[in-house]
């Protein structure tokens, strides 16, 4: 009964979305504000509707209604309530409902804004949002219905269907199969929604881009309206990616965080184009250049967002992430194709309107360096794309499937990432319009000296001589010291000029120019993350050993001692083997830790939970591999030493903070037509306000 309600409401929201598309197009064609308004309201109405449907589903998950196929598949009686709620995105059909729910929420939020000056965009924003929404809700209604129930036919077979088949009786299994134990981790609970939030919020800038193309209002207004959406989308996507890495680090027990799995890459690709877009829109705002480039980037991002959702949902690529195969693959393929072709056609149609208003003259100007940044991001995208499709190409050409693995991605993207990080430090110092080696050198030499001193310290004090590591450290030290120097220099100048104390000056400075200083904070966070990545990629060491009680394993100055072991059953149907170890460094006791292995009876699935002693300097990561009930017979441990990896997670926190600073709402600056605004900016100075 409840399921029928949830399904019915979903159909209503599907029809509302279809109606919104029709009435928006009609309203635009006839110039009727009434019809456009009607389409807006219809689209906004989908939000409460889909909310009802999603809440119904959540209610059924929480109340163990196992006659519903989806509920049976992703929950079980022994699961805590919060996991039952989050099981909404633990399975395919539920996650599609969730996608649609977010889409309708964002579409509603963006259309609630005041539209006075941008009325002509409205119908097309409604169309794009509603088309995307209708697609996802349509998938749920026609292909992947989470409300379908179990029925037992006369012959005893159990089938799933929305409505009772002939001569069948309802069937309710006594308990559900439960969420896979590997997914019962806080990181995994919020990783998918973060990615989805990122994916979905990129639809908004895309919607405005299409609106700009259709209406012919191709100045930078669409970019200004969606700037904040882009930052927020980017932040969610970044956090989603990092959380996935954290989950892998905590749960998968291989001491790594990123495996260049095709599905990881699929989520990473829209991040690459999105990041490029985030930067290149600034060139259009400041200089009126790269207009079609921005359009291409956002169209690509949208296609990759849908593609990313598709890859995780279709099973076309072999990957640890792949869900069961289903019929929705072709539907996704067609949707991506059709929306991409229409967007590209619109872009070509408006090509002439998107001419640059200025010429790039200097190789070292800010816009040229931004362009380089964009090219690097796109290069990484090409590398990723090549790696993903290479097996398919090689099979077509030679008849033999040839794959490339993580070494390919590391070798091909490593130099590109390093260049990007270096560029990230230097670019903010170059001026718009024109820069020379001399002006750039003047701005750079002081922080560069600091970086070189730090590098020398690392080489001679820490004794690091590996060439790639030295390059890596040079790049991040340079970038970090320039970024920090920029903060310091500007704050010092302001504190002198305004007679404010230093901290206040820094605060006000950042407050006045949030995007700039939020951006710097994000740059700093990227440096942190790069430090963590260099640490674990280049300096990870590992060892293993079988030791009896009281014996120790040594790694990089640490000593891990086996103290005790307990094996017991828990109330939620697990068998736990939990070892007690102590970690010491140079004879100094650092603490007691508990690596363990849980065995889930229900799913017959073991789960290894490492013990991690974590500091900003390094992690000691201990896995309990095997054990004997008799302590003196020993237990086997695998130990990883992961230097600096914590900077990766710390960087992610700073990234969130930086994004908040950059995206924090302030008074909307009155719209000044692009041409007059640029004329005000004839004075180009290094580090001048962007």
């Amino acid at each position, binding site marked *: 009964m409840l399921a029928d309600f949830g399904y019915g409401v979903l159909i209503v929201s599907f029809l509302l979305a279809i109606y919104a598309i029709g009435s928006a197009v009609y309203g635009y064609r006839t110039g009727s504000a009434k019809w456009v308004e009607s389409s807006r309201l219809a689209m906004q109405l989908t939000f409460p509707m889909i909310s009802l449907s999603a809440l119904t589903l959540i209610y059924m998950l929480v109340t163990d209604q196992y006659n519903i196929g989806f509920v049976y598949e992703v929950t079980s009686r022994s699961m805590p309530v919060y996991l039952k709620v989050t099981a909404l995105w633990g399975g395919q059909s539920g996650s599609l409902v969730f996608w649609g729910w977010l889409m309708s929420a964002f579409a509603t939020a963006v259309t609630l804004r005041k539209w006075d000056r941008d009325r002509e965009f409205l119908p097309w924003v409604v169309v794009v949002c509603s088309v995307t929404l209708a697609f996802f809700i349509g998938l749920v209604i026609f292909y992947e219905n989470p409300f379908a129930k179990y029925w037992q036919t006369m012959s005893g077979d159990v089938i799933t269907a929305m409505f009772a088949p002939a001569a069948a009786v309802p069937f309710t299994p006594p308990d559900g199969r439960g969420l896979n134990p590997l997914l019962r981790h806080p990181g995994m609970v919020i990783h998918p929604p973060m990615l989805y939030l990122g994916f979905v919020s990129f639809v908004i800038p895309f919607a405005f881009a299409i609106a700009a193309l259709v209406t012919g209002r191709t100045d930078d207004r669409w970019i200004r309206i969606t700037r904040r959406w882009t930052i927020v989308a980017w932040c969610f996507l970044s956090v989603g990616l990092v959380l996935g890495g954290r989950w892998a680090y905590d749960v998968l027990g*291989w001491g790594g965080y990123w495996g260049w799995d095709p599905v990881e890459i699929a989520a990473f690709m829209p991040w690459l184009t999105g990041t490029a877009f985030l930067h290149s829109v600034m060139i259009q705002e400041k200089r009126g250049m790269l207009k079609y480039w921005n359009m291409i980037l956002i169209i690509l991002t949208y296609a990759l967002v849908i593609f990313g959702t598709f890859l995780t949902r279709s099973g076309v690529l*072999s990957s640890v992430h792949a869900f069961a195969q289903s019929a929705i693959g072709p539907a996704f393929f067609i949707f991506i194709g059709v929306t991409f072709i229409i967007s590209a056609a619109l872009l070509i149609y408006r090509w002439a309107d998107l001419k640059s208003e200025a010429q790039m003259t200097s190789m070292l100007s800010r816009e040229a360096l931004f362009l380089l940044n964009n090219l690097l991001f796109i290069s990484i995208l090409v590398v990723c794309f090549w790696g993903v499709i290479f097996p398919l190409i090689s099979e077509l050409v030679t008849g033999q499937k040839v794959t490339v*693995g993580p070494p390919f991605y590391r070798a091909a993207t490593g130099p590109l990432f390093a260049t990007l990080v270096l560029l990230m430090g230097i670019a903010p110092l170059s001026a718009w319009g024109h820069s020379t080696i001399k002006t750039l050198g003047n701005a750079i030499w002081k922080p560069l000296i600091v970086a070189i001193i730090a590098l020398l310290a690392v080489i001679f004090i820490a004794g690091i001589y590996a060439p790639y590591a030295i390059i890596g450290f040079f790049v991040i030290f340079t970038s970090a010291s320039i970024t920090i120097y920029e903060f310091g220099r500007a704050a010092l100048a302001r504190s002198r000029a305004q007679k404010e104390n230093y901290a206040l000056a820094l605060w006000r400075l950042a407050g006045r120019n949030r995007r700039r200083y939020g951006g710097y904070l994000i740059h700093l966070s990227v440096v942190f993350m790069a430090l963590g990545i260099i640490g674990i990629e280049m300096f990870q060491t590992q060892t293993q050993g079988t030791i009896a009680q009281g014996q120790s394993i040594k790694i990089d100055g640490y000593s891990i001692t086996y103290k005790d072991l307990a094996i017991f059953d828990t109330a939620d149907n697990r068998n736990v083997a939990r070892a007690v170890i102590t970690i010491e460094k140079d004879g100094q006791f650092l603490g007691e830790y508990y690596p363990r292995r849980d065995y889930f009876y229900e*799913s017959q699935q073991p789960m290894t939970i490492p013990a991690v002693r974590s500091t900003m300097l390094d992690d000691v990561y201990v896995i309990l591999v095997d054990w004997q009930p008799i302590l003196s017979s020993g237990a086997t441990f695998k130990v990883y030493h992961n230097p600096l990896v914590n900077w990766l997670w710390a960087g992610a926190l700073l990234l969130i903070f930086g994004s908040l600073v950059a995206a924090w709402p302030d008074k909307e600056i009155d719209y000044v037509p692009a041409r007059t605004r640029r004329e005000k900016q004839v004075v180009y100075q290094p580090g001048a306000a962007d």
Partner: protein
Amino acid sequence: MSSPRIKFLFGGLLILAAVVYLIVSSTQASAQYFMTVDELNNKKASIVDQNVRISGAVMGDTITYDAKTLSLSFTVADVSGDNNEIEKEGGLAVALHQAVIDPNRSKLKIVYVGVKPDLMRNEAQAIMTGHLGADGVFRADELLLKCPTKYEEAVPSQVKGN
């Protein structure tokens, strides 16, 4: 053409060349044949010591693990590498099950040194990178497991038996 244009064009070409070089050299250095057990067994001699990637169905009875040396050995049975064929057989779970119970499938013994993965069990799909030794045993450097039951299953298993 004005001179800055040429400079930019030149710079662009330079970047393009660098990226093409990176992709080509990295592909050459790390490309691996992706084969089924069947294909590998047919090519045996010619493929010994080459770095390849294979996929197969884990046979649960054959799994042995020596924790002292972290040495994991098991046998995989041939399973199609083609998604469409797997679908035709009735999905990955069915295909893996068929592969394991069918005595006529070609088999391959695998040795892997490392922590035994949590997903290592009967009828899991194993994707391994490594090389075939002259003794006919495949030494895997990398082991990836995929369980079709990991996330979802179409019909409840305890229900099927009724």
